[in-house]
């Protein structure tokens, strides 16, 4: 499903953010990605959505070789991947409904199906009553759930999250993480970058640990075993 082989990422500043990363994530897996600040977590996720390209090595997602994916195919590639951000990245001048509908509008989903699917996504994150509100009228946890609804509304096969609980208190964090867990139960591959070691320990999932751009103990690290 997601496969990295000897992946290097050097930024134009000359900084090597990733140095020889190799791992594989199967479909239906849920994996955590941890590491100190600046270890390269966000960079790794960006390689999967092709916001950045690997400098060397190969990245394969859903069987597609991303190194050679032409630029004009990138939008279609992204429609297959849902992404949740720490700062939500919601449009504050659009309603909750319109925010969640964005990925569907972009893919040209017809109007009737669109509202049905937006409601279904909002239902999954428990926000069905708030579709007419604007993001700034919601709490931090609710805004993050809107971000999650937008990430899953297109029924992607992969769900990525970059520190989705970074701004939330422990209780809300757990709630959000549970949501990801449920999506994974419904056959979505989930990869979550997080600092919160206590939280990820609860789920007993595989953990990829980055240290200065390299994986340590990559495959084998299972906190509960």
């Amino acid at each position, binding site marked *: 499903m997601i496969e990295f082989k000897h992946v290097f990422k050097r930024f134009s500043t000359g900084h090597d953010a990733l140095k020889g990363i190799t791992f594989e994530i199967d479909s239906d897996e849920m994996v955590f990605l941890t590491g100190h600040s600046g270890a390269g977590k966000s960079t790794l996720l960006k390689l999967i*959505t*092709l*916001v*950045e*390209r690997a400098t060397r090595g190969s990245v394969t997602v859903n069987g597609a070789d991303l190194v050679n994916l032409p*630029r*004009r195919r*990138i*939008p*279609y*590639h*992204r*429609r297959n991947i849902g*992404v949740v951000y720490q700062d939500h*990245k*919601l*449009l504050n001048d659009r309603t909750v409904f319109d925010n969640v509908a*964005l*990925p569907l509008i*972009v*893919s*040209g989903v017809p109007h009737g199906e669109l509202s049905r699917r937006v409601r279904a996504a909002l239902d999954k994150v428990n926000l069905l009553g708030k579709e007419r509100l604007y993001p700034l009228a919601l709490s931090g946890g609710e805004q993050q759930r809107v971000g999650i609804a*937008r990430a899953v509304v*297109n029924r992607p096969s992969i769900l990525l999250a970059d520190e989705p609980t970074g701004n939330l208190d422990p209780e809300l964090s757990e709630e959000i993480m549970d949501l990801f867990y449920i999506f994974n139960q419904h056959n979505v591959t989930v990869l979550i970058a997080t600092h919160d070691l206590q939280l990820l320990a609860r789920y007993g999932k595989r953990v990829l640990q980055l240290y200065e751009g390299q994986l340590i103990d990559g495959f084998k690290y299972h906190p509960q075993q």
Partner: protein
Amino acid sequence: MKYLARHFQVFIHTLGNIFRHPLPTLLTVAVLGITLALPIGLYLLTHNLKMVSSEWQGQPKATVYLKKQATDQDVARLENWLATQRSWIAQVQFVEADEALEEFKVMSGLGKALDVLDQNPLPNMFILHMPETLPVAEYQPQLLQLEEDESVDQLKYDLEWVQRLQAILKLAEYTVWMIAGLLGLGALLIISNTMRLSIANKSDEIIIINRVGGTNTFIRRPFLYSGFIQGILGALLAWGLIKTGMNWLNAPVEHLAELYASDYQLAGLPLPVEIGIFLSGGLLGWLASWITVSLHLSKLNPSK
């Protein structure tokens, strides 16, 4: 059909946005309108200058007033002599005294009032047209010689100043075209910059749509529509400003023309130019949006 429907939807949506947030649009349109109006105004100025100067016959001419007592034979002799002077006279016109009086009646508007004169005060005359390009010095001696002729009363000519006026008008026309060209270029830059600002405000929207899989075409579309609509509105404003300005100037220009016994009227915008204003307004808005959004987008996607 589905494709058209989607375009229509974006168009309506864009219009809706403009009505919901009219202030930024109004500001952009005002900037566009004024920057477009300046070169158009200058164009009108040259256009009118050209018309005025062509109304003043460009050719240098001289009027030869004959003495009252000059006989038909004298006239014939002069006519024959003038016919041999083809090297500096392009055209000779003989105007009989009666003919001249009739013309004066019409031109002066005095009409029948002049009938009270018991004799025609005007003499017979020759009107000589000289080639425009010939330097005055080339034929000045011949003119002086003509003035000395026993049948010639006096000779009136407007020579150098006509040529000088022509040269000055030519210079003015070139200058004005140059300024109009610079203003046109300035308009393009100002429009691009205004568009860049309005797109910078939407930078979040562009990034998010890009991240959820919107193609560049999809992202560009509403900006192109709003650029086009703003361009057309800007052109409309420019057009309105020009029309208002013309209405304002019309009365004083007519008054001035009257003082010069001319029925000159301000020349308005020719239809092709009017159409051109709207087309170029729309095109400029569209183009400026395309360039600015594309520049913005090229930073969002990794190269290759």
